[in-house]
């Protein structure tokens, strides 16, 4: 292990970062406010010119910023842009600040570049859409939110983006809201994501609290934090008073003689300088924070290069200040500094809880078990949306977040294990569902869930760079696949449209009760059974789709191989997770086999399988250039990116050492090296790694071979397929129905939820009411007795004023429950209950 005390990094001010998210925001605003008018006046060029213009501008700034980043020394690669201070209340400080470091820089490039491509693609795909402007408005807004998420310097800004992408995906999935199904799918995505958000917020809260944070300007009973250093005598006195007070708990007040220090902002701790800057001293803010940088730096410092916080000793902090009173008091307090990892909540380590909460957030956004259910339904949206949301951006937010918080996750092996295991299980689970789907977009959706599982394996076992690498390659090949499928659907749409027309002309609509397990709906442009033999009709689409299939299946000449293989290798060789690495590796390997199978199945079913019918030939054509160009661009990248960025270290060492991307991300992830347990020595043997690589290629080939033999010529194998299906009907239909998870959810969670709500309504109306009614029967008798008395005694006396009109018995027929009595009964009973609780406690 090299000397890693130099985790602290300098930042460079770069005041133009805010432009990256600003451009899409402006584009969205213009299209949202004026889009309809512009479109009516200038035609459809107007909205998309604005939107694409905004994207190109954002991408340009992103590239320039990235270039600036490249010029810097590796340990200083962080560009920071504090736009304005947003909330400064005590320890709780949120700035509208953006940071571009190697990780977020990479993400920003993916988002802006692939986003631009998808915008271009949409001009072709959405050409027939009347509210074209609205689509581009949402699309830009989505990109804005995503950039906010990625570039945000603190958890709060990230959460803004986090919620923003949720909202935008809701808008985009429900874009064709006139169909109820789509609106519901959008809703589902939104609500499921909220569950994840709950995790995110709780995690952030716990983290802030764990660092000793209070939430307002003054030191309350619960921990305090003085940011500014006292300057005048009066201030020092005030501070001294406060430090000697009973409830006061000053964490750190220190002064560092460093001109570069962010003076006046924080209590400071001394840190050794990064490489190449020997002798310079840097100030590291200590205390509660929501900023990723500050958090990372102080975690690194406080652990002092050792496996952190397990022993929970006191901190070797030197306080230098000219004011002896302050120094003494704060040194005393600092000695009591409790590390984050020492805290427990209900006996559970706090760090574990925090990581778990963040991971719950990640499962919601990144569609992992058990919150993946929204993603396949989200296919209801337009295909560019699927590409943008599922490929490049939103679903990877969870992976990005965990990669961003790598310094936190490595502190908790338990949390890492959970991340890796959930990832592995999701990868396998979704892959099996993908085996039998007929809807081409559903196949891709489940494959996305599965691939996200791989990424979580990567970040879960501590191979952050590999997880992020897979995120990158996946963004490319999955965007290519989605856009390719969109191209196919676009073509098929003309056919089904024709059929629909035809069917209506002959007066028989399609049968909506058809079992999708057995027969394809001839009007469904996404059903692969309606395709077949499109290779000759859509040659460009086919070729790009094939390249993307190579990439995802893991053939060594395309992107996916490099990232997936690295993940599996790291999973196998890692020593951090609590379950043995080979188990995770095995699950991943099986999932990879299935991946190769179902991807090539979709490829052969779509483009081969049978000779195209005359109907197909007549109606299905290659997509316009705006679509195919984008496809080619992505396919090209699929071939280039893998070898360039991620050539395995083993072979790569021959000419340039570590994989480029790993080196690039080193500044972000280096802290993890302090804590991760190293790989065991025998696994370093090149032969082992090569063996694993060959194994990966082997399973990919196996998947491809089986798919080809079954689906390349459907006429030959159809009988066999049908025989299998009927033989294993139970399993097949179970898997086909996605293990009926949706039904289970509906029957359990949703149902409980509903029943719980019903229960309250029911108590409100029935319990008290029922008791009342029961008594009503009894009191009827009493009432009869009373009325008898009244009839003979009272009536005679008062009848002389009787006005027989006002109170007609007919009115009484409208009897409803006497609610107000129930309310007051509730008050009485409530008081009794509260008194009892309060007294008996």
């Amino acid at each position, binding site marked *: 292990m090299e000397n890693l005390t130099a985790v602290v990094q300098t930042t460079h001010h770069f005041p133009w970062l805010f432009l990256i998210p600003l451009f899409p925001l402006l584009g969205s605003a213009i299209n949202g406010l004026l889009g309809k008018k512009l479109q009516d006046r200038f035609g459809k060029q107007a909205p998309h010119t604005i939107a694409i213009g905004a994207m190109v501008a954002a991408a340009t700034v992103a590239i320039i910023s990235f270039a600036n980043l490249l010029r810097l020394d590796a340990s200083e690669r962080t560009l920071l842009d504090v736009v304005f201070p*947003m*909330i*400064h*209340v005590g320890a709780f400080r949120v700035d509208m600040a953006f940071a571009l470091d190697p990780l977020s820089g990479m993400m920003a490039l993916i988002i802006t570049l692939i986003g631009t491509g998808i915008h271009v693609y949409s001009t072709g795909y959405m050409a027939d859409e009347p509210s074209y402007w609205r689509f581009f408005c949402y699309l830009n807004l989505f990109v804005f939110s995503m950039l906010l998420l990625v570039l945000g310097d603190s958890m709060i800004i990230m*959460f803004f983006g986090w*919620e923003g992408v949720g909202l935008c995906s809701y808008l985009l999935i*429900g874009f064709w*809201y*006139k169909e109820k199904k789509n*609106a519901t799918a959008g*809703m589902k995505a939104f*609500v499921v994501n*909220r569950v994840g*958000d*709950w995790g995110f*917020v*709780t995690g952030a*809260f*716990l983290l*802030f*609290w764990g660092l000793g*944070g209070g*939430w*307002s*300007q*003054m*030191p*309350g*009973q*619960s*921990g305090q934090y*003085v*940011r*500014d250093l*006292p300057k005048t005598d009066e*201030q020092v006195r*005030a*501070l001294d*008073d*406060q430090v000697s007070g009973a409830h006061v708990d000053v964490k750190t007040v220190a002064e560092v003689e460093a001109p570069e220090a962010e003076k006046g902002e924080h209590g400071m701790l001394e840190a050794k300088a990064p490489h190449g800057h020997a002798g310079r001293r840097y100030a590291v803010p200590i205390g509660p924070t929501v900023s990723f940088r500050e958090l990372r730096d102080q975690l690194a410092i406080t652990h002092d290069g050792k496996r952190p916080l397990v022993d929970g000793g006191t901190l070797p902090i030197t306080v230098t200040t000219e004011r002896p009173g302050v120094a003494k008091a704060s040194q005393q307090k600092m000695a009591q500094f409790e590390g984050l990892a020492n805290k427990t909540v209900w006996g559970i380590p706090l760090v574990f809880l925090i990581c778990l909460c963040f991971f719950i957030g990640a499962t919601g956004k990144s569609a992992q078990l058990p919150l993946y259910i929204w993603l396949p339904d989200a296919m209801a949206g337009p295909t560019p949306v699927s590409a943008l949301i599922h490929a490049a951006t939103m679903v990877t937010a969870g992976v990005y977040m965990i990669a961003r918080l790598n310094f936190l996750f490595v502190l908790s092996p338990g949390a890492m294990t959970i991340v890796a295991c959930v990832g592995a299980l999701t990868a396998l689970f979704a892959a099996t569902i993908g085996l039998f789907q007929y809807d081409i977009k559903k196949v891709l959706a489940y494959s996305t869930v599965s691939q996200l599982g791989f990424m979580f394996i990567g970040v879960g076992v501590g191979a952050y760079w590999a997880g992020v690498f897979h995120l990158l390659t996946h963004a490319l090949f999955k965007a290519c696949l989605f856009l390719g499928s969109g191209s196919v659907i676009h073509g098929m749409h003309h056919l089904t449209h024709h059929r629909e027309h035809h069917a209506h002309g002959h007066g028989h609509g399609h049968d909506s009760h058809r079992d999708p397990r057995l027969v394809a709906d001839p009007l469904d442009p996404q059903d692969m059974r309606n395709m077949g033999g499109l290779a000759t009709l859509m040659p460009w689409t086919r070729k790009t789709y094939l390249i993307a299939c190579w990439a995802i299946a893991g053939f060594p000449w395309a992107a996916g191989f490099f990232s997936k293989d690295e993940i599996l290798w790291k999973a196998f060789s890692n020593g951090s997770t609590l379950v043995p690495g080979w188990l995770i590796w095995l699950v991943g390997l099986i999932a990879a086999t299935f991946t190769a199978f179902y991807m090539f199945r979709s490829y052969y079913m779509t483009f081969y399988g049978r000779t195209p019918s005359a109907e197909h030939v007549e109606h299905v054509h290659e997509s316009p250039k705006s679509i195919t160009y984008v496809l080619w661009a992505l396919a090209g990248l699929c071939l280039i990116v893998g070898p360039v960025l991620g050539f395995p270290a083993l072979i790569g060492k021959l000419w340039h050492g570590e994989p480029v991307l790993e080196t690039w991300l080193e500044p972000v992830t280096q802290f993890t090296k302090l804590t991760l347990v190293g790989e065991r020595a025998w696994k370093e043997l090149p032969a082992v790694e090569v063996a694993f690589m060959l194994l990966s290629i082997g399973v990919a080939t196996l998947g491809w071979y089986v798919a080809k033999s079954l689906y390349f010529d459907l006429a030959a194998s159809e009988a066999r397929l049908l025989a299998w299906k009927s033989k294993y009907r139970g399993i097949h239909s179970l898997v086909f129905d996605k293990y009926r998870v949706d039904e289970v959810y509906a029957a359990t969670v949703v149902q409980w939820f509903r029943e719980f709500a*019903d229960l*309250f*309504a029911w108590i*409100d109306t029935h319990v008290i009411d029922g008791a009342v009614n029961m008594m009503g029967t009894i009191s009827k008798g009493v009432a009869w007795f009373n009325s008898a008395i009244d009839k003979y005694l009272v009536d005679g006396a008062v009848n002389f004023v009787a006005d027989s009109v006002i109170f007609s018995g007919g009115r009484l027929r409208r009897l409803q429950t006497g*609610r*107000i009595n*129930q*309310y*007051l009964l*509730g*008050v009485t*009973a*409530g*008081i009794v209950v*509260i*008194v009892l*609780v*309060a*007294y008996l*406690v």
Partner: protein
Amino acid sequence: MGGDLTIALDNVQSLRYFAPELILSVGILAILVADLVVGKPDRKRSFGVAAVSLAIALVATLATMDGRARGLFGGLIARDPFTDFFKVLFIVTSALVGVAALRSRDAIEYRPGELQDKESGEFYALLLTSTIGMFLMAAATDLLMAFLSLELVSILSYILAGFKRRDRKSSEASLKYVIYGGVAAGVMLYGMSLLYGISGSTNLSTIYQAVAASRSTLVLVIAVVLCMAGFGYKIASVPFHMWCPDVYEGAPTPVTAFFAVGPKAAGFALLLRFFNGAIPEQIHTDLFANSPWPLVLGLIAAATMTLGNLAAIGQSNIKRLLAYSSIAHAGYLLLGLCSFSADGQRAILLYLVTYLFMNLGAFLVVLAMSDAGLGEEIADYRGLGMRAKFPALVMAICLFSLTGLPPFAGFFGKFYLFAALIAKGGSLNVALALIGILNSAVSLYYYARILRAMYFDKPASEAPIVAAPIHAWNMGAMAVATLGMWIAWTPLVGWVNASMAQWYPRAQTIVTAALR
């Protein structure tokens, strides 16, 4: 930290600090007399007088505000930063409701050529009197004043709820309110009488000592719980919430908007005073460490927000839905109290400000739409996103904010509430915070129903709906405030801290000495 509350001012000395109330009283008389003397009742004139007196009262409040605490009228009420905070809040609320009522057909009978403006004078006079009542609720440091001001607000609320007297729903709301309110007030009085017996005084600070010091004597528990019935009824917390949906649905919409914000905030002010005592120097929140109140308040808060949110799910009437939502929000707000920490109590004040704007905004949309002839069922809001873009947008913003999504104001408010609990620590507080966060996640479900109706459902008719300009301005202001509050968040927190400084004075010393 100087408060000269111990040196209570006598009646004459107090008048100077009582100016806002006096100005409003003059305004009330002016409105009523003008109706008799100047000529036929006129809505604009009444509003004008009301607006002017509110404005002068605001100026008077700000002018006599010096960050010190004083006891007025021999210590019956206090004039301190805490009161001033609420005074500003109430003036803003009343002014906004007053503007909303200016064009509302719902509050004041408005039939062209027939009964136009007949009751406008009374309406605005009642509104101003309610404002005085709320002022006094926030200022009361004596049981007698607490009771009288609470009754004043209640009695006026009964009248306001039944203001649409030709509408049977409104009358029914009024009846339910008066019965429920009467019982609640009676129960509270009984509790107050026991407190008086325990401490031999009606002064809140003396009583606070008794409440805080004795752990859980049965009679004290009973007394406090009975008092909480009165406060709980004002803030609509379980189990004293049942009047709320009925009254909110039946009352005229501007009045509902007023109820949902003004008296609720006043109730919290009273509750805070009650549990903080009245005299600054004698505060020791540790007194509550072993008492049952954190748990009791916590359970009430949890029950309130859970019931509010779950019951809201099944509602079809939008006012009723918002009523349940306001019950749920009372639960969130109570969370701030039950930790008995400085952070929590400040969070209540912060949240009240955000709640003022987002909730009023939602009600204003309902008001503007029902003025324009739209119904109050969620079904009526189908396709509103196309028919009335701006109101729908405001509604969406307010609903997102009520849910607690960033960057809307509600997010920050909730953030502080939950954060205060977590910062305080302890399994009860952490559990409550988790329940709160979960609840706010659930709440999206029913808010989203309105959103879905507005943006994703087919409208019954395509005809555009135009909101009256004054409503549009009003709504716009609410939306801007909700959307942009984070810009002014830091000064807002500073203001809140200053308002709470008499109980938690350290904020001031740190702000003035260490930070600036």
